[in-house]
Structure formats: structure tokens, C-alpha cells
């Protein structure tokens, strides 16, 4: 296992460096943060002086090398927009995003898997038909439309749930959670549904497809012949085998949920990293953008590593040496 892990860590480092380099080159096209930082009446000489002080007039490679050097010692720089160290900013917003993603994922799994199994077992039927239609809608509707519709229905018309923000949060050390207050829980509902809807429907259809395929295999037929109960067949034997693709997809999806919950966070004014990122883009806040992208690539790499490790937990037949296998065990 150790050589496997080391190889993966080395690959991770390369991925992150490449992401950082590409991100950096792109920043030349996001506009000049200096204009957003100073008032309109400020003269050109002052702007130029500021530009030089912040190192923004150095060539890209110089800026990039100094960036990598600073990151290596943990100095992520200071945000142009609110003069706060970037690491502090990201850490402050991380709990909000992670909590939202966690709730969205749990919702997606809790609803997606059972419904997927049901529609896989009962291939034709009213409930299955409804599930299929709803899942198609969930896959096709963009998340901001879903978010706005939910707000219109539940906040404006019915007044049951809040339309923005996180509600009251409780600080437990460095972490802030909304799960311990009523307003926090109420605020989590609509954004989680919005964020998780795509995942939910994806899992539903995926599990259904996998179940359909698994239920046709020989060993299921033989288990039936042996007289095992339906419950044992469906949930102990068949479901386990459908889980590998689900785990792969969820792994990829969680990474992108964390990285790009931007739309949902903007619609619900959720104070997470996604909203921070879009604000940084609009402002041209280069330090925040650069660190955010490096952090995200780290997260993707870590999650995919965990996913690969999970394969071995699910399917004991897989071998360490065929690393990054993925796919179906038959």
C-alpha cells in the first residue's frame, strides 16, 4: 500500500503545480484590481506606484515563482478586497460550504439510493414513472432556477423557510455550525435541496441502471433458486455491487460540489467559499483566487484518493497493484 500512496502523492503535487500555473496565467485577463481598490479620482502615478508595491507589474513567471515560494511556507498573502490574510478568510468560510455540501450529499444519498433501488426492482409502475420524470427534471434544470423557484415558493408565498443566509450559527472552536440552531437548520433546507438535486437524480438513475444490470446476472438467479428472500438478494447482494460506480461518481461530484457551489451560494447568499470566490473574481482579488484554486485542486486530489481506497473496502477482490482501477467487479 505504501508505494501506491507515495506514487499518488507525487502525482498530486504535479497536478497542483500545473493548476496553479494555469490559474496564474489566466489572471492577467480578469482585469486590474487596482481600479477596484482606489477611488476614481486617484491619479495615475499613485496607481502605478501601488501596482509596483503589490508586485502586479512583474512578469507572470516572477509573480508565479514568488507565489509558490510563499505557499510553500504557508503564507497565502492578503486579500485585496478586505485586507485580511487569505488563509484566515478561507478557513472562516470553509465550514459553511462543507456543511452545505455534506447536507446536500446526505440528502442525495438518502433519497437517491432507495428510490434508485425501488425503480430498479419494479421496472414498470406508477411510482417508478414518477421517479423517472422527476429525475429528468432535476438533471435538466440549472441550479439557479431551482434555487429561485424554491425561494419563491417556500419563502415568498408560504413564508415557511428563510430565503437567504445561514441563520444563527454556533462557534465550536474554529468551526461554525448551523446545525445546532433552529434558524440554522431552516436555512440549510432550501440550499441543500438546490445543491443536491442534481446529485440525487443522478444517483437515482445510476443505481436503477446498475440494479437492472446486476439483477440479470447469474449469481442472482442462483440465489433466487436457492430460496434466498428478496430482501437479502436486493439489499445484501445486488446493492453492494451497484455501489462501486456510485462511489466513483459521488467522489467526483463532492469535489465539484465543494469547488463550485458558487451558484447556489450566490442565490442564497450563503457565506461560503463559492460566494467568496465569485466576489474575488468580480473584484480582481488575485491572492484569493490563486489560493482558492490551489486549495480546490488539493481537495479533488484528496477526494479521488479516498475514493480509490474505498474500492478496496467495497470489493476485497481488487488488488493494490492494479491501482486506480475503478469500474465493475464481476
Amino acid at each position: 500500500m505504501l508505494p501506491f500512496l507515495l506514487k499518488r502523492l507525487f502525482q498530486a503535487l504535479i497536478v497542483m503545480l500545473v493548476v496553479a500555473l494555469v490559474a496564474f496565467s489566466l489572471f492577467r485577463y480578469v482585469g486590474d484590481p487596482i481600479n477596484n481598490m482606489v477611488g476614481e479620482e486617484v491619479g495615475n502615478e499613485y496607481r502605478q506606484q501601488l501596482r509596483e508595491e503589490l508586485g502586479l507589474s512583474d512578469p507572470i513567471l516572477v509573480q508565479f515563482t514568488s507565489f509558490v515560494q510563499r505557499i510553500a511556507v504557508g503564507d497565502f498573502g492578503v486579500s485585496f478586497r478586505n485586507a485580511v490574510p487569505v488563509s484566515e478568510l478561507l478557513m472562516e468560510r470553509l465550514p459553511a460550504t462543507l456543511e452545505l455540501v455534506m447536507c446536500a450529499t446526505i440528502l442525495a444519498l438518502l433519497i437517491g439510493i432507495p428510490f434508485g433501488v425501488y425503480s430498479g426492482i419494479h421496472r414498470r409502475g406508477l411510482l417508478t414513472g414518477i421517479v423517472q420524470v422527476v429525475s429528468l427534471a432535476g438533471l435538466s434544470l440549472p441550479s439557479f432556477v431551482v434555487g429561485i423557484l424554491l425561494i419563491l415558493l417556500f419563502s415568498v408565498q408560504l413564508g415557511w423557510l428563510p430565503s437567504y443566509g445561514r441563520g444563527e450559527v454556533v462557534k465550536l472552536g474554529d468551526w461554525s455550525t448551523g446545525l445546532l440552531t433552529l434558524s440554522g437548520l431552516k436555512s440549510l433546507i432550501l440550499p441543500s435541496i438546490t445543491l443536491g438535486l442534481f446529485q440525487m437524480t443522478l444517483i437515482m438513475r445510476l443505481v436503477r441502471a446498475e440494479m437492472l444490470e446486476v439483477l440479470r446476472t447469474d449469481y442472482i438467479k442462483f440465489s433466487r433458486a436457492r430460496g434466498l428472500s428478496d430482501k437479502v438478494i436486493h439489499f445484501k447482494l445486488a446493492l453492494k455491487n451497484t455501489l462501486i460506480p456510485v462511489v466513483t461518481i459521488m467522489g467526483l461530484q463532492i469535489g465539484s460540489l465543494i469547488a463550485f457551489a458558487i451558484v447556489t451560494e450566490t442565490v442564497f447568499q450563503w457565506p461560503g467559499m463559492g460566494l467568496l470566490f465569485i466576489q474575488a473574481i468580480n473584484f480582481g482579488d488575485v491572492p484569493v483566487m490563486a489560493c482558492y484554486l490551489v486549495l480546490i485542486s488539493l481537495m479533488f486530489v484528496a477526494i479521488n484518493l479516498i475514493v480509490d481506497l474505498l474500492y478496496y473496502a467495497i470489493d476485497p477482490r481488487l488488488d493494490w497493484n492494479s491501482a486506480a482501477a475503478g469500474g465493475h467487479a464481476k
Partner: protein
Amino acid sequence: MKRLKSSLAVALSVAAFAPVANAKDLRWSHSADITSMDPNAHYSTINGSFLGNVYESLVRYDKQMKLEPALATSWERIDENTWRFKLREGVRFHNGNPFTADDVVATLLRASEENSAYRPATFWIADVKKVDEYTVDVLSTKPHATALNDLSGVFIMDKEWLTEHGALKSANMAKGEKSYVSDNANGTGPFKLVQRRPDVETHLTVNPDWWDKAEHGITNVFYRPITSGSTRVSALLSGEIDLITPAPLQDEARLNQADGIKALAGNNTRFYMLNFNVAAPELKDSNIKGKNPLASVKVRQALYQAIDFKLLTSKIMRGTSKPSAAFVAPEVQGYGSRLEQPPASYDVNAAKSLLAEAGYPDGFELGLECPNEGYVNGEQMCQAVAAMWGKIGVKTKLTITPYSNYAKRVLSKELDVFLNAWANTPQLDAFSLLNNVIRTGGTWNPGGYSNSKIDALIGQVQAEQNMERRIDLIVDTLAAYQQDFGGISLFTEPFVWGMKKNLDIIPAADGRVRLYWAKLN
């Protein structure tokens, strides 16, 4: 485990006593958060607007947008470089410290030093001297006619408080500097800061010892930025927010129809115009090589006459603005009603013949660049203008970019024609436009417009101390700019505020939300 238990206890108590919005609380949502509680940290309208409720300046604007006494009760000009202010007695800061001349001296020096981001309003200050406990002299480097206007934007801070927290020197946010003052406030204004959570909520409470008569009836203010326009409107409609600034223009009717909600529309001093690149030897996005068509006044006039301003304002701006040829809003000093006389009329045929006279009978290609945000319906307006210019044979290539990118490209002198807006705040004096946009070498004159006659007039404006003569000179300058078609004047920016029906608030032309002018019934 112990920590978890006590945190749970805190959580339950917070949940139990969670602030329920009672009738005297105002929950206000703007599209962006303020960047700092330090009034000198960032020269921005939203900071000025919000902080104007916590801090105060020597003079302030009244409901007719004229200057009136605030922390200074009277003033006189002792000589051409010295303004003497008599300060209001019996005023206290939120922490109880008395307001005296020392505070004014310390604040003005802090706002005018080299590192201060507020220098554009205070560059003219040479020194500030305390004459006695309640009298201060402000000395300028050169005679400065708009000293009062500039000072209306400088908020006075408590010297002892600044010294106590090591913040006597200002921290420049642009350089990443932060100080105690960025997150804490101690002013003389009608509201004091309770808690600030950046990007989430800033909580103010009423200052019971305010020197002025408080008629607003507000006890607490909760400022919660919501970036998405539709979410902000939904929050108002669902009752979670009491005041939103701004509301998207298209939602005005919907807000008025909703129960218990109303919308207030107005125009602020931000004036939209199109500026030309006249100095470049060749235009970047044009097929004409070797010369610049925009350098010819006939071409510029043709472009002016091709635009149907009435159509723009009635259809694109949905009637929320009226066309104006004045380049500045009526509330701005330097506005003259004779500027409303358009220098030319809408006439497509005249435009075509002017182009032919200038040597472009078949028209030419031109680039127009506009930002996709930061301007109300800016994108649609530019599309309309591009189409109108196409009618006279000027094939316009329209580019829409995000605001940060756009601002960079404007200032790098790359654009042929671009959309610009100028508010002239907080001074409400047109010299700001003259000096930055029209004058040769102005920061926001990347098009290189240069007219020696106009430059001479601007120099006269700067030196003129008699207010009436000065305003006449400004009107003359703007008229000359107008006749020379240095830019195309469009209209003032419309805005809509949405609020609960029981809130009466006066939308000021400078776009600032003055909660002490509001009344919560």
C-alpha cells in the same frame, strides 16, 4: 466534552433569545458589503453611505442637497487659503469622549497624509491648526473653492480613541494594511456599531445621546448584503428584509403591487456618457488606417446626430431617465439649464452628410466597449447605440466585458469608444468631471481629449473664488465641451429602492442612505 456542553448551552440560549425583528428594527440589504469600518480606508460610495450613519463630518447635505452645519456650526474664509470653523459644543463620541478641536485636527491630518486612500478629497489640505477648544483653521495649499464640499465627505474620528488603538496613521486597504479601526467604530453619529461580521451582517444600534433631533424611530439596524438581485427582492417580499438598495429596475412595478411593500424611484448624480479616443493615431478596431476618424469634430457630431436619445430613454431605460445634454446632474454644482439645449438634433441624414464631408462617405468600422455590470441596462444601451451607428454606415463592433476587465482596458487607452459614468460625489461639484475626464491628461481621459481653450477655462475655474462666477465658468466649460462633441452626454442613472410600506425614506441624489432622514412608523 466540556467545551461542547457549554457550546450547546450557548446554542440553546442563542436559539431561545434569537433576535426577533421587532417593529423598531430596520433590516437593510445592499448589493455589496462595506469594505471597512474605517472611513478613510477606501474611497467608495457604499462605505460613505453606510458610515455616514455612524460618523459625521463638519458640514453635511440637507434635503435639498445644499450644505448645512453638522459638527461645525459656522465657518468663514479668513484669507484665500484659510477656512476657520467654529465647532459644535456638547457633542460626544459613542464612547463618551467629548468632541473637540483636537479630534478635527487629528482626523483631517489622518485623511490627508500620503498613505491615505482618501487623498482625492483632501489633497488640497496643507495643514490643520487648533485655534482654541472649539475653533479650527484648515489651511490649503492653493485657494480651494470646494473646500466645504470636500470636507462634507471626511468623517471626524476621536483622537484619543485613535491613539489608544494605535490608529493615528491611516491604514491603506489597497496595500493590505488593516487596523483596529477597520472593524470597530467610534463616531458622533445617530447610530453606533454593535457588531461587525464582514460579508454577513453589521449591527448598529441607536445613539441616544446624539446632538441632533432623532425623528427616525429606529432602534437597531441590521445591514445584510445580498449580492443576487432576485434574492434581495425575494427577501423583501418574504418579510425578512425591510429595505433593499438597489432593487432591480424591472421589479419596480412588482414591488409596488405586493402587499405592504413599496418602491421608490429616483435619479442619482451618476451621469452616463460615451467617450472617444481622439488622440490615437489610428483606431484599434477600425478599418481606417493611418488616421483617426474620431479626431474630426464632424465625425463626432455625426455619431451624436445618429443617436435617438428619446428612444434610448423611453425603451431601453423604460422611461426612468430623461435625455440630458448637460454631462452633470441638476444637483451638481456647475449644472446650468442652458446646457440642456442639445448641440445638435437627431437627424440620420445630416449625420450621413457630415460623414461624407469629413471624408467617409462609405462610413467606417468602429469599436464600442461596455461593461456587463455596474451600469443600469448598460449592455442593452450599448447594443442600441451600436445599431443606431450602423444605420449611418458606421459598422460598430460591440464588446461586453466584466467590469474589472473593462476598467483596465479603458485606462490602458486601448478602446475606440467606451461607456463612462461620473457622479461627482461626494463634493457634488462638476470640477471633479472637468479635472478627471475633460482636462488634458486627466486620469479618466484615456481618449486623450485635449482642447487648449477648455483647459484654460478649467484653470480659471480652479482659481476662481467667487462661487457664482465659478459656476458660470463651469457651465461655459461644459458648453464648450458639448459644442466640440468631446463626449456624448446620455442621462443620469435611475435607481429603485424597495421597502416596507411603513418606512418613509428620502432617496438622496448622491445615492447615500441617510437613515436619520428616514421614519419607521
